[in-house]
């Protein structure tokens, strides 16, 4: 990295903001079409009723909750990379921190749609706000669902502000090299930033506090999400390990999504000198760590079921591995715990196709992990005559397609309109004495 100069960093990053080509707009249009499909399905559901989804007794939470947990999980590694690794002074996070933070913001936005979709009568969402209804009844702050509302809205606010604050110096750099409407756009967004020492003095302090506050927040948010399940008595849900298990799983899936996004990004925008093989390798090494925690959590759940001598718990976990959803279970185990072990070998960590392929498999595995937990628990709980299965309906699949398209649509808009790599942090990583402007 030391051979880069300040000028080259600016040129490489700001080059990505040049007017896009036709292929870009075609991709954006295709994603917009996907969003329209999802929106149409949602509107259809609002008119016809929530029954058009596949959720029914005994499985009341289907893909809407699966996708909610999936996207909240994806959001987590953005904060891990931008805040936690910042506090640890891990310099390798600098080239990918901005894109990971962006991923966080868009993933939380996408996740936030699902409780609204699942609500059915979406116009009644204000029932969740701390505002008394006609009977002066307030939301129940003892409910994990209300914890969730507080935690997710806090997380969206904090991660958006963290993202924007981190971008201020780069917006100023973009402003100083842009012309026309783009210059006016960046001028407004950069708030008059000039890199004055007095600004940096307060900025560095404020950024440090941001990171310090975001770190416990990120751990709390997915813990709160896990309590949506763990505070119920359903077998397979009522577990004390859920909070750390969910946090580790969230970071696991988020890191995989970082690879899924970064690898095409660096190929398309010629970022190879900035997002180097070493950076991707470090992400892969972190994935080994999170994969081992997730694998350990899977094993611990079985140990707890066996050690408890609780027949219902034992049956629930036997059925999970051998019952109707055993395929989903084994996809989960193989993709999340076994496939990442390939990263123990340098050959796979240094190979872009392998990194990309494994990252996709982990994303698939993590989606199925949420399926196994959310659907598996109520589908096979205490009373045999109440057991039942769940299959997502076409409407649910359409909405899911729409939200996936929405995430990638927002990300594509971001990479062509805002600096996708933090130029300031990249410059900070340059070694002492390098020729800044040559």
């Amino acid at each position: 990295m030391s051979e880069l100069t300040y000028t080259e960093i600016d040129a490489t990053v700001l080059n990505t903001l040049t007017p896009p080509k036709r292929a870009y707009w075609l991709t954006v249009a295709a994603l917009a079409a996907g969003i329209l499909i999802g929106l149409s399905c949602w509107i259809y559901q609002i008119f016809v009723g929530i029954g058009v989804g596949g959720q029914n007794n005994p499985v009341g939470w289907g893909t809407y909750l699966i996708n909610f947990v999936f996207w909240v999980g994806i959001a987590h590694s953005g904060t891990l990379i931008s805040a936690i690794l910042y506090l640890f002074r891990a310099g390798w996070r600098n080239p990918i921190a901005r894109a990971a933070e962006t991923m966080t913001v868009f993933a939380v936005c996408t996740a936030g749609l699902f409780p609204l979709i699942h609500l059915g009568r979406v116009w009644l969402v204000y029932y969740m706000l701390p505002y008394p209804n006609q009977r002066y009844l307030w939301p129940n702050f003892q409910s994990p669902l209300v914890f969730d509302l507080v935690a997710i809205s806090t997380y969206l606010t904090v991660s958006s502000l963290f993202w924007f604050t981190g971008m201020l110096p780069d917006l100023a750099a973009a402003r100083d090299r842009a012309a026309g409407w783009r210059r006016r756009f960046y001028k407004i967004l950069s708030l008059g930033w000039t890199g004055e020492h007095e600004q940096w003095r307060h900025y560095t302090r404020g950024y440090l506090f941001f990171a310090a506050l975001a770190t416990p927040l990120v751990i709390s948010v997915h813990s709160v999400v896990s309590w949506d399940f763990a505070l119920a008595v359903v077998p397979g849900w009522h577990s004390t390990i859920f909070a750390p298990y969910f946090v580790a799983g969230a970071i696991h899936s988020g890191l995989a999504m970082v690879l899924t996004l970064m690898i095409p990004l660096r190929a398309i925008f010629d970022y190879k000198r900035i997002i180097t093989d070493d950076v991707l390798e470090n992400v892969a090494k972190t994935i080994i760590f999170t994969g081992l925690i997730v694998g350990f959590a899977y094993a611990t759940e079985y140990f707890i079921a066996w050690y408890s001598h609780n027949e219902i718990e034992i049956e629930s976990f036997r059925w999970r591995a051998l019952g109707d959803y055993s395929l989903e279970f084994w996809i989960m185990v193989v993709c999340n715990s076994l496939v990442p072990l390939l990263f123990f070998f340098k050959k796979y960590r240094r190979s872009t196709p392998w990194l990309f392929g494994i990252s996709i498999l982990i994303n698939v595995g993590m989606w199925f992990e949420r399926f196994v937990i959310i659907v598996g628990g109520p589908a096979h709980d205490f009373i045999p005559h109440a057991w039942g299965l769940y299959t997502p309906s076409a409407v649910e699949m359409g909405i899911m397609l729409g939200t996936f398209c929405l995430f990638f649509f927002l990300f594509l808009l971001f990479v062509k309109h805002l600096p996708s790599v933090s130029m300031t942090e990249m410059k900070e990583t340059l070694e002492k004495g390098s020729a800044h402007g040559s």
Partner: protein
Amino acid sequence: MEVKRYVMGLFRDEDRAVGAIESLKKSSFKLHKVHSPVPSHKIMNVLDRDRPQSKVGYFTLAGGIIGFFTGFLLAIYTASEWSLIVSGKPVIALVPFFIVGFEFTILFGVLGNIIGLLTQARLPRWKNLKQYDERCSGEHFGVVAQCDDADQDRLMAFFIEKGGDAKRIYVY
């Protein structure tokens, strides 16, 4: 009335900019401000030696404390408005309410942090751009000093002697 002039020395090299700042402090010229594309620890060490730390943290702390009590009291107030026992928990259940208090601590702490950052760094302020060189967001460190009208040439020569690549004059 004597007119004050401001001259900016532009340096590609951080060490030279630091050297110029140190020399300026010993000279008859008055150091006005320094622009840099990155938060430079070397510049901070020279400029912040005798200054108190940034006050942003006090805003963050105040926000956090206010947030904690807001979250806790909101949950207590709303529960006591309708004294209904839910899930066998007491009406005012401190353990679950701690979660609400914690999230509000973070939220208000961050909002306090932002208010502190904006007020202390005096943002937004677009008129700053009139006295600024665009190269300072790229690869240059800009050191601005103040002098009397008659000393302008001497100050420009000073920056060139210190290895400044360019100079610019501001009339405030």
